[in-house]
């Protein structure tokens, strides 16, 4: 158990409409006895930020670490080598997405309060970290002291990874274990854990959820890692606001949600528990959604005994499509059904069409189940299936570009570069880049300073002489940046342009001391991004007018819980 927890706050350079007063937040956090120190680092994903971070974590192997920054997978990957080098165990370090779950999803004045709350919860969870031994495992681990040999885990494991050992206790075959957590969810005595899913910690986390004291109901939402967690992030990036007191916990699969956690939540005063998982197209290796629904059914009795209304706990299947989708060209489709056999999410449907006068069976996709993984695309011998965003033509064009160092440009191709308020200038020669790109035939090359802000996009739109067909953005960390930009682009009438994004920080990190080489790498990256556009595109654009389906459903759920009234166990 870490004796102390350090908190690192990132002074993000993002030009967001809401800003977090980090100094005041530090003040409040310092009052918390569980936190040993709070540090503010400027721009954690920059080279200086990372250097500062690595110096900070030296000698901190014994403490836990909460990094409250963005949810960027990129950030996590960049900081991990530093954490590992110092010897900090991965599981004592949490990357808390304060940008997505606070700045982006929150509206109103209590941004500071909620930030403090959420960091407090992350800290409490880390302090409960036990069992260092389990963290080196790569599959499920059973605490044999608590196991009572009921064998429920064996029955429910979707890949039959459990077998009985000589003493009659269940044992996991690590070669088969998919880390789905279904056994964690099934165990009636909660004695199974995964390296990144420990019930005691989750319990602590849940019990420290307090809400902001307003009348808004506290809603605990479980999200699954493969589908709803990234989908939820994408929703937030596109501008959806979450209900004020909604807290999100990520689990590997809905089947990993142990019924005990739900009872814990309700006894701790949480007003509603929502399981946000898959509905159509459950991951075929897991089938956790079916188990989760069954567990909720069984839970109804317990809820009644605790005098809770059934509606407080619900399962919601993610309503929208994830990814850009897969299109099947009926002229090419053979009806061989290879795609249906390989699809991990049961998303292939058969339909009859008349092609060239003959009636034929061809396949289509169930858009609620399809996740655009592309396994069908690679299995289809005739190339009838294509995943939008990574069609064969796009990938082949990109391969050609990276191998040959050249790309075809037209005057309707534009580039918008961001020097991150000047922070990238020491590493990349923007003037050189602009010159090279113009010489290579890009119609318009614009340099901006704070592309993450809406005002910058106003600037960009005024600088365009004509509306480009394709635009390449060279800016910072890709995760959700593109989605965030979509709203700004639409507002300045640049929504019809097709945009690709490349991360200039990534190139500068490869050659932090050689400006020329880094600039050349950026040039290459922009070429590759341009090559990824198809000439004749078939992509569907998301209907972003009005509420999204998810927003509708969340609002409906929150209203139901509101109408039920507050949880009688809630502390006033």
């Amino acid at each position, binding site marked *: 158990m870490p004796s102390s927890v350090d908190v690192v706050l990132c002074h993000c350079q993002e030009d967001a409409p809401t800003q977090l007063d980090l100094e005041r937040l530090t003040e409040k956090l310092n009052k918390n006895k569980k936190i040993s120190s709070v540090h503010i680092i400027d721009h954690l994903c920059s080279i200086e930020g990372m250097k500062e971070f690595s110096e900070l974590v030296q000698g901190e192997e014994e403490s836990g670490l909460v990094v409250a920054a963005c949810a960027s997978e990129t950030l996590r990957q960049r900081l991990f080598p530093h954490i590992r080098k110092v010897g900090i165990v991965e599981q004592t370090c949490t990357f808390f997405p304060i940008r997505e779950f606070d700045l982006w999803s929150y509206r109103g004045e209590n941004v500071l309060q909620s930030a403090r709350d959420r960091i407090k919860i992350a800290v409490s969870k880390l302090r409960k970290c036990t069992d260092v031994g389990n963290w080196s495992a790569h599959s499920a681990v059973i605490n044999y002291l608590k196991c009572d040999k009921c064998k429920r885990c064996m029955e429910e494991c979707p*890949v039959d990874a459990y077998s009985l050992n000589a003493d009659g206790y269940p044992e996991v*075959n690590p*070669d*088969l274990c*998919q880390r789905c957590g279904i056994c964690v969810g099934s165990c009636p005595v909660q004695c199974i854990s995964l390296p990144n899913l420990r019930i005691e910690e989750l319990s602590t986390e849940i019990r420290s959820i307090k809400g902001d004291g307003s009348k808004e109901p506290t809603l605990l939402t479980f999200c699954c890692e493969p589908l709803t967690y990234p989908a939820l992030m994408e929703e937030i990036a596109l501008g959806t606001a979450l209900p004020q007191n909604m807290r999100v916990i990520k689990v590997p699969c809905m089947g990993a949600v142990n019924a005990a956690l739900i009872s814990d939540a309700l006894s701790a005063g949480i007003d509603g528990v929502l399981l946000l998982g898959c509905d159509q197209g459950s991951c075929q290796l897991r089938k956790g959604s079916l188990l989760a629904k069954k567990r909720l059914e069984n839970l109804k009795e317990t809820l009644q005994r605790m005098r809770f209304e059934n509606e407080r706990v619900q399962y919601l299947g993610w309503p929208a499509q994830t990814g850009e989708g897969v299109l099947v060209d009926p*002229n*090419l*489709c*053979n*009806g*061989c*059904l*290879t795609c249906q*056999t*390989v699809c991990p999410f049961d998303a292939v449907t058969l339909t009859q069409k008349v092609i060239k006068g*003959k*009636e*034929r*069976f061809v396949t289509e996709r169930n858009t609620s189940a399809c996740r655009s993984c592309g396994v069908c695309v690679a*299995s289809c*011998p*005739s*190339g009838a299936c294509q995943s939008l965003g990574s069609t*064969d*033509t796009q990938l*082949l*064009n990109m391969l050609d570009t990276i191998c040959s160092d050249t790309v075809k440009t037209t005057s309707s191709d534009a580039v918008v570069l961001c020097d991150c308020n000047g922070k990238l200038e020491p590493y990349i020669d923007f003037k050189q880049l602009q010159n090279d790109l113009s010489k290579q035939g890009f119609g318009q090359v614009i340099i901006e300073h704070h592309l993450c802000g809406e005002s910058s996009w106003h600037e960009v739109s005024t600088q365009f002489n004509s509306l480009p067909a394709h635009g390449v953005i060279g800016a910072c960390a890709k995760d959700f940046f593109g989605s965030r930009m979509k709203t700004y682009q639409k507002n300045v009438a640049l929504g019809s342009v097709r945009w690709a994004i490349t991360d200039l920080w990534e190139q500068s990190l490869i050659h932090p001391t050689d400006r020329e080489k880094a600039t050349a790498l950026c040039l290459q990256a922009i070429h590759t991004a341009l090559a990824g556009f198809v000439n004749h595109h078939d992509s569907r654009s998301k209907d972003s007018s009005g509420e999204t389906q998810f927003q509708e459903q969340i609002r409906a759920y929150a209203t139901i819980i509101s109408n039920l009234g507050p949880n009688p166990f809630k502390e006033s």
Partner: protein
Amino acid sequence: MNQQLTTEMRQIAKRLLSSHTVGTIIGWEKGSRWYLTPPAFITDENEIDRLYYDQFAVNNLAIYLLDFRHSDKKVAVFVKGCDSRGIIRLIQDHQLKKEQLMVIGIPCAGMFDKTKVIDPKHPHELPLLNKCLECRYPNPVYADEVLGEVSVLPESSRPTGISARVATAHLVGTRSDQRFERVEKLDLLPSEEKVTLWRAYAEKCLRCYACRNICPACNCEECIFDSHKKPWTTKAALPFANGFFAVTRAMHTAGRCTECGECERVCPVGIPLMSLNQRLIKTINNSFGSYDAGLDLELPPPLSQFQLAEKTEV
């Protein structure tokens, strides 16, 4: 023996056509030379005497069924052991339904190697094709009717039927344990020699697509190599593009090849195409478990499934 089989063929054909059970019969007929017995398509009862069977009836007739995919009348087809696996291939790929077909199994004593003909005018002794010596499925694996007393056996077996004795005398299937010999020999060559060898073959290739056209596993409505849209590779017969074609075709049919050997037989420039297919079959057998395509309709092909723990680690 050939005479008897031919007679039975004609009898069945007459029965099927006159009763209007089928609209077309696909079989073989005697060609213009003593060593040619090409495919025949009979729709008229009066033409059934064209049908003929001997040890030159090597063509795999399964592929022609694709032309009758949308026919409203049934089609009858005569199949040897290797051909019948092609039928299963087509059914498993959802290109045909069993109800559209009347599959007639015929025994096989092995097919002679036409390339060894010396005298085009006068018949003489010929050896069997290598694939017949290595044959593990001399009996039809699927048939609605049979002739020549052949048994329908969905597993690897010895020849049955009235030609069984001749088949055994000709050593059909005696080298089945050595069917990967050629592949193993080629595998032992040093890399530079392999490169030289396959470059030479790539230069020979005409991109005539005979191998693709004759293959039952190649049943796409529109082949990617015919498409004008996909920029996979140029249609020009350049060595690098020909190499691309050969490897792609081998990979697309991987796990689905029924080892009928037609691709290599029809290649006008003599590229050892079956060695590519057999190399893949060897990997499948070693790494994913023994598998013969075109036998079991229920079992998905190896590339459409997986095991969680496999000895494929690279």
